[in-house]
């Protein structure tokens, strides 16, 4: 089992004729994902690696002959909100937003519409998600052969605010013989569609998942939200966390953001130090070194190191 994706999951790519989207489409097809169409307004009738291109999402749905499960949205920031609205209002329930530099107001509108329509957004500013050996939705892990090298099936659910670090951590779990149930690049922005706490119930319900690893950064309150979720729900899943960007707590770094837009610290609670304390208070193990993760996960799972 896994969360969000199965071997049957169908999705489209909005903005499919863009340079990055063409690569991503190739990678997903090579991995075995079912990319059933693409949308770029004005480009109807073309093909991208054999995937038919349409002007509208409605045309893609009609051509498919039934509901489409998901969409990967990779269009410029000024057009992203409209593309996501179009996906959701055409019945798509899982929208991965790759685009970065979208104003918060637009993201908040997408998320509110998704909530009303029973849809889920992953991202923005993310690389998507992958269920090893089953389906890859987005650029996560890169070309199929590279993704296969970093992601083997296993018991660990991974959630990360950094797309690259999703693969780095998953690869270390794979190398250690553990593997990954589902890895989600949740996005690096201040407001995102699905936070750690919002994905936890899905992992909780997934039999394959036995432990969770999260990668986190300064800025925002989603670690506090996770800590609260863990306290309120008697979760069966041990969580191991890694916090990057501790140097940002230095006085000279005040008011600056590094790495991702979401790392902007807007209050004391947003700092790395404060977040680590909060996570630890909820019983979440925060490791100091990135390379400690596999061993600590093994310890939590009761597997010999």
């Amino acid at each position, binding site marked *: 089992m896994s969360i969000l994706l199965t071997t049957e999951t169908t999705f489209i790519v909005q903005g499919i004729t863009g340079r*990055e989207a063409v*690569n991503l489409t190739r990678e997903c097809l090579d991995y075995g994902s079912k990319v059933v169409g693409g949308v770029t307004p004005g480009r109807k009738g073309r093909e991208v690696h054999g995937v038919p291109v349409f002007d509208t999402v409605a045309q893609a749905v009609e051509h498919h002959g039934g509901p489409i499960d998901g969409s990967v949205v990779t269009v410029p*920031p*000024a057009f992203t909100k409209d593309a996501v609205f179009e996906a959701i209002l055409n019945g798509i329930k899982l929208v991965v937003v790759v685009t970065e530099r979208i*104003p*918060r*107001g637009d*993201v*908040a*509108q997408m*998320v*509110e*519409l998704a909530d*009303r329509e029973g849809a889920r957004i992953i991202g923005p500013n993310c*690389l998507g998600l992958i269920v090893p050996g089953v389906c890859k939705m987005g*650029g*996560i*892990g*890169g*070309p199929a052969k*590279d*993704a296969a090298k970093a992601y083997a099936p296993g018991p660990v659910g991974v959630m*990360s605010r*950094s*797309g*690259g*670090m999703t*693969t*780095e951590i998953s*690869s*270390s779990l794979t*190398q250690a013989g553990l593997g990954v149930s589902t890895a989600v690049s949740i996005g*690096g922005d*201040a*407001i995102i569609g699905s936070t750690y706490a919002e994905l936890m119930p899905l992992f909780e319900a997934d039999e394959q998942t036995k432990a969770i690893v999260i*990668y986190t*950064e300064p800025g*925002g*309150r*989603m670690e*506090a939200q996770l800590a609260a979720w863990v306290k309120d729900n008697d979760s069966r899943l041990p969580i191991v966390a*890694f916090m*990057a*960007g*501790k*140097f940002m707590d*230095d006085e*000279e*770094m005040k*008011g*600056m953001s*590094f*790495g*991702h837009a979401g*790392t902007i610290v*807007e*209050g004391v609670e947003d700092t790395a130090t404060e977040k680590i304390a909060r996570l630890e208070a909820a019983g979440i193990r925060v490791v100091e*070194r*990135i*390379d400690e993760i596999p061993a600590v996960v093994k310890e939590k799972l009761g597997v010999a190191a």
Partner: protein
Amino acid sequence: MRFFEFEARKIVELAGIPVTKYGFCTTPEEARAVAAEIGGPVVIKSQVLTGGRMKAGGVKFADTPEEAAEHAAAILQLEINGHMPRGVLVDPKAEVKQEYYAGVVWDGTAKRPLMLFSDMGGIDIEEVARTHPDHVGRGHVSNLFPIPDFEAKQAIAATGVSGSQLNRATPILARLARLFRENDMTLAEINPLAELTDGSFVALDAHMEMENEAVGRQKRLLRGELGIAEDDDREPYEHSKFEEAVAAIDAADHRGVIQGKDHGFTGNLGLVIGAGGGSLTLTDAVRNQGGKPANYSEIGGNPSVAKACGLAKEVLEKDGVEKIAVMMSIVSNTRVDIVARGVIKACLELGKDPGETIAIFRIPGAWEDEGEKILAKYGVEYCDRSVSMWEAAGRAVAKIQGAPA
């Protein structure tokens, strides 16, 4: 993007929120004229993008236009926390009966704007929330639907405010929430919101910040209404030569993205690192093992050889930097061989031996086999994913700065 008080007041005024008859002045003569027009006691306030101006002597009261001009002359020369003022604001000295607070911020957890109101204005709202939580009213607003007045009313009534004060404050808070949403603000604050002796409400001070990502679509407000120049970016500090040079290299070529920062970094360990999360992780790993980075950097989005070369050269040309550490988290879009070519070229163009200069090269992922071949030719050891990011950072520290402290 941060706004000066005189701009924030203008934004508030444009949203239909009452303000006093203030004037923005850049000379003592202008201040004198504004004070004369106001025709009574005035307050002169320094216009700086930093806090603590009251304590620093940046706010003064005057009874006559002459006195206003004198104070303006002094304040215009007064540096506060390293900032020279953009000008002064001359404001009538208000007859205040009661000070309130009205603000709107993002609630990232609820993913909605959050209205805040307090009947204890004039002081820091976080302080009030801590010491007098029952004096802070809150209410979320929708991102999709029109913001109704009653939601503002509920937030205000939660603090116990009633009577005509409730009815006067309600449209102000509602309008503040609307302007927050329409103008892509990340912070919109009126503090104090003053009830004057005649019962009217005015915004006596305002603080606004706009999201950088939205600056492009808010041109009408920024350039039109406020007259803010395109290059007036309001960064919290001045960019160094290194930062400007890296930004110029990045802008010259659309392939990939590079970033370089050295504000607050004073060491001699040159970092050519990436991507977003990888750079954060690696910078911590270097520092936690006793290393002193000369800079922060980010490589992402598959840059050209020229771009990777440009970044490496800029780092190598920083004072005190003899060697660089080239490290990234596993790459799937950026190519190992392209970055390898870039950093080797940087060494060669500066007349340095790559084998000596590149203390470590740890980038696993796309095209790593090809990258390894290139590095081998120049005597640079290649580290793949079997060397963790922590270990790679530790080796860099040991090679560049000696054994970890």
